[in-house]
């Protein structure tokens, strides 16, 4: 009875002592020390458990239950406290680790770099025409007089040559007259002729036999400079050659293109007969727009804005490219890339396109991953 009472007393004392120690433990190290002193190999509870061996078998069961009860109780108590202390330690650490999240981060490079509107618009044009089965053709900026004028049916001395305000190159050792191309039309000749069969330069597109469907964007030059004219600008031309294409289809292509490009449901075009040496019949095209406000609205309003020139490829041009005009026919058109970019995106000074003013590029430029596609939309 004494022994039992004594065990009970010991348990009670231990419970009280450990309880007090747990309560006193102020940090994770202290509670660990309490755990070791109670439940470690040499701990007080472990020591009491070790006395079980000396207890009479008939009493061992109840004594074991009592001591194990104490152990369970003490373990739980210590774990609870340890958990509590770990949490407050973590809280303290996290509190110390607080930073000012309002500090600005370094801008992502993709947030800084911008694509020039001319490149973006060329990609937009490419996206639309690729859906209609066109490819891109290109040619050199320094062209021979033959490619730029003669092959395109500009008679020598004709006033139409003068309308072009041509930049002439200084004489070259080979004696060939060269100019800075005044339009991208020489690429039409390069495409129809076999000059690109073994590409002399890698960017020249290989020759295509009819049916031909190409668009030709690029830099062009005219000796002219004011707010709406710069000595260098960009043009895109299109060419369709087969055995049946006519003006009805030309109208369709242009209407579909302009609708898609300006991202409007409808455009109204006005076709006016005009004159270009390299097309017959020739037309200029005006697009209906509203210019009453600060922004030009395409597809509504009462104004007309001249936007492109077009026509059926002149029989002489076809002949110059070795195509029989009684067999082959087709149409071509051309427009200013900078001009349609200005119309769509609202820039008003062409000269700024070529000034590389960072403020202008950042404002009118496009994000590098704003890829114009038909499936994702031309502009975001």
């Amino acid at each position, binding site marked *: 009875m004494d022994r039992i009472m004594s065990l009970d007393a010991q348990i009670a004392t231990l419970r009280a002592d450990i309880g007090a120690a747990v309560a006193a433990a102020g940090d994770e190290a202290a509670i660990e020390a309490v755990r070791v002193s109670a439940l470690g190999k040499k701990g007080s509870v472990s020591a009491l458990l070790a006395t079980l061996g000396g207890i009479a078998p008939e009493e061992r069961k109840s004594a074991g239950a009592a001591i194990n009860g104490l152990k369970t109780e003490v373990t739980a108590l210590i774990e609870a406290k340890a958990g509590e202390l770990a949490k407050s330690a973590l809280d303290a650490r996290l509190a110390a680790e607080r930073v000012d999240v309002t500090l600005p981060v370094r801008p992502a490079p993709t947030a800084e770099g911008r694509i020039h509107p001319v*490149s973006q618009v060329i990609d937009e044009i490419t996206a639309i025409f690729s859906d209609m089965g066109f490819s891109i053709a290109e040619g050199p*900026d320094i062209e021979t007089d033959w490619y730029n004028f003669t092959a395109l049916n500009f008679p020598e001395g004709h006033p139409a040559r003068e309308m072009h305000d041509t930049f002439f190159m*200084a004489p070259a050792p080979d004696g060939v007259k060269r100019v800075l191309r005044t339009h991208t039309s020489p690429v039409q000749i390069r495409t129809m002729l076999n000059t690109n069969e073994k590409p002399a330069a890698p960017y020249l597109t290989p020759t295509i036999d009819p049916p031909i469907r190409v668009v030709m964007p690029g830099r062009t030059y005219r000796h002219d400079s004011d707010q709406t004219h710069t*000595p260098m600008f960009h043009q895109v031309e299109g060419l369709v050659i087969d055995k049946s294409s006519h003006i009805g289809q030309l109208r369709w292509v242009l209407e579909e293109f302009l609708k898609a490009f300006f991202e409007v449901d409808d455009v109204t075009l006005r076709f*006016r007969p005009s004159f270009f040496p390299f097309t017959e019949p020739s037309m200029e095209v005006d697009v209906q727009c509203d210019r009453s406000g600060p922004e030009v609205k395409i597809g509504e309003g009462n104004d007309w804005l001249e936007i492109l020139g077009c026509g059926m490829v002149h029989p002489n041009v076809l002949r110059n490219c070795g195509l029989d005009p009684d067999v082959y026919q087709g149409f071509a058109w051309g427009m200013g890339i900078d001009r349609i970019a200005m119309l769509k995106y609202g820039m008003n000074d062409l000269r700024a396109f070529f000034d590389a003013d960072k403020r202008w590029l950042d404002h009118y430029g496009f994000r590098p991953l704003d890829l114009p596609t038909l499936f994702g939309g031309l502009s975001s």
Partner: protein
Amino acid sequence: MKFTLDWLKEHLDTTASAEEVGKALTMIGLEVEEIVDPAEKLRPFVVAHVVEAKPHPNSDHLNVCKVDAGTGTIIDVVCGAPNARTGMKSVFAPPGTYIPGKDFTLKAGVVIRGEKSDGMLCSAAELELSNDHDGIIELPADAPVGMPYVEYAKLGNTVIDISITPNRGDATGVYGVARDLAAFGLGTLKPTDMSPVPSKGPSPIPALPHNFAAGEPKAIRKFAGRYFKSIKNGPSPDWLQQRLRAVGLRPINTVVDITNLVSLGWGRPLHAYDADKIVGQPVLRVAKPGEEFDALDNKIYALDETMTVIADDQGPLCLGGIMGGIRSGVTEGTVNVLMECASWDPDLIAQTGRRTGIVSDARYRLERHVDPALTEPGLELATRLMLEMVGGQAMEPVISGEDVFPNTVVEFPLSEVKRLTGLETSATEIEAILSRLGFRLEGTGNTRKVQVPSWRPDITMKADLAEEVMRMVGVDNVPTDPLPRLNHVATRMLTTLQNRRRIARRTLAARGLDEAVTWSFIPEAEARRFGGGKPELKLANPIASELTDMRPSLLPGLLAAAQRNTNRGFADLKLFEIGQVFHSVLPEGQRTYAAGIRLGGSRHWQAQNGQVSVFDAKADIAALLDAMGHDIDKLQLVAESASWSHPGRGGRVQLGPKVVIGWFGEVHPSELQAFDLVGPIAAFELDLDAIPEPRRRPTRSKPALKLSDLMPLNRDFAFLVDRDVAAATILRAARGADKALITDVGVFDVFEGKGVPEGKKSVGIAVTLQPTEKTLTDEEIDAVSQAVVAAVTKATGGTLRT
């Protein structure tokens, strides 16, 4: 070309309004630039009665007037005109009226020296009707008070300005415009009487001989002249003066005004000589080289032997088809006139026009081809106008030379209209349209013989006739027709190189660079410094003296852009451009390059070092190459700088020993100075055309991926090497130590300074070993490590740091 609505209606019987005429003109290819009613701005001016005019109490030259402008109340007006007087009729402008001749708008309730003035009595100059500003307009006593002055004076005369394409010489006269509108159906053309007028005897000046040697450029085809004796010249009648003024011409005297009337009205330029100033027999000949000509525009031109002149014993009287001379110019005192109506070679007129730079109404028309059927009739028309307005006697016309009539006949299949335009038009309609335009059709069936009228030399072939039909039907009436698809799913549109350029652009922008587009032409000095300056790459006629050479490199343009931005206060810049550079005038010498620059560097709390370096440029070029499927570490890298870069901080990328594809580096201080920029600037240039296309493979399948189950392990080494040993040499040696096991070698540290001897550097490399068969034993790892140390030591002469 400008003309008034009244003028048009003199040749076209129509009730169409200016707006309807304008619409029709644009539809048929005579594009309307502008329709202006100059009277519109004068609409507020009204006829007024000066009920009373008495001297201003506080002025010795002003009058105080009581004016009745038909408003029901009498208006007080202070007027400074000397002719203001009681009872007169004049023109009154109420407050709020814009006064064109003074360029201001009248205010209400003005007080002039203490007297109220509510409006203004106006002079003709204030209405911009003439230069007469000596007094206010005086109107007859019966002028109805309150009537708008434009109505009273019949000033409503709309001016239509059209632009004429170079092929439409026939529309450079009002008559020709009327003819086109009549064919379109807007009215009926009124014919002009050009029948011969009887002469009063033989011409005192015989026919002008054409004195040309064989092979000389003879611009004259046919010269028709008529001598007018004893005329009475002077200012032309008001209607003619008004008409010329309305289209921007200054009336000179009746004879000169008649030549302008015929030129603008019928597109038939004339020239009048004061016959008494002609010395000897005038002839047609080429000009002598350097021969001086004192032209009517008060400039002296040096002529040459490509130009045709009408000359007398004393030299040129007129530069044929271009402009007359001062010496024989017709003045108000002229009594005898030689009137010229001549036919010229359009190409030679254009050439002379270009060579002299003279822009004249005659040249404008003659270089666009004037109807050869109008040479003598034009002279008869002039005769009628002369006799009517200046009197005198018309002598017998003198004619020399022959006109050229193309007499074109086109074999025209009517189906051509449908083939080229898609327009469904009946044979009857096509015939009717072409007939109205003056074409004569012969034959039946599909193909007709079409005779082209003399005024349409631009029509030479089937397509031209198809255009004429479409023009009259209206292009807007051509039905649209979808272009059939060639493929149901669009095929690839861009070549590899085109796509590369697009990818390069997006890659550089994604690395934070802004895309610039700069001029293709740059100053000669810059071109020279960047490897250009070849004589054949110069422009013969640059737009500005500093933009003379086609660029050999994109960098000068970018550096100039950097300078502009820096001058505006924006010195943190990252710019790139992708475009053509010009190494020769041949297509293969015009190559597409990508180039970029970085300068400045934004101050940021996270930034370690704000300054850019050669490695930024190398990283840009490496990123570009990667975007095109090339690893810069597998290309040949030569530590030699481009001429524009810092000699010790630049390199070039090569494909093999000879083909250089790119350069990178920090811009040379002397370049910085030339562009007035502060460095460092990191720059690169890459020849996109030189990068080979990837090999075409039969499938798009990628090589099989072999993954090891075994962990890779890393070993670090630090070598002490000479300062000028290239890191690439260390890496190459380490990689070669065991090609099977070593999969990667990287540099994790480069150090010079404390603990490292002078002239040496410490390079730390991390070597990755990837076992393939089994886990490596310590002995095996040691063996590889020793091989690495041996290889690097051998290659560099350095030692392992321990």
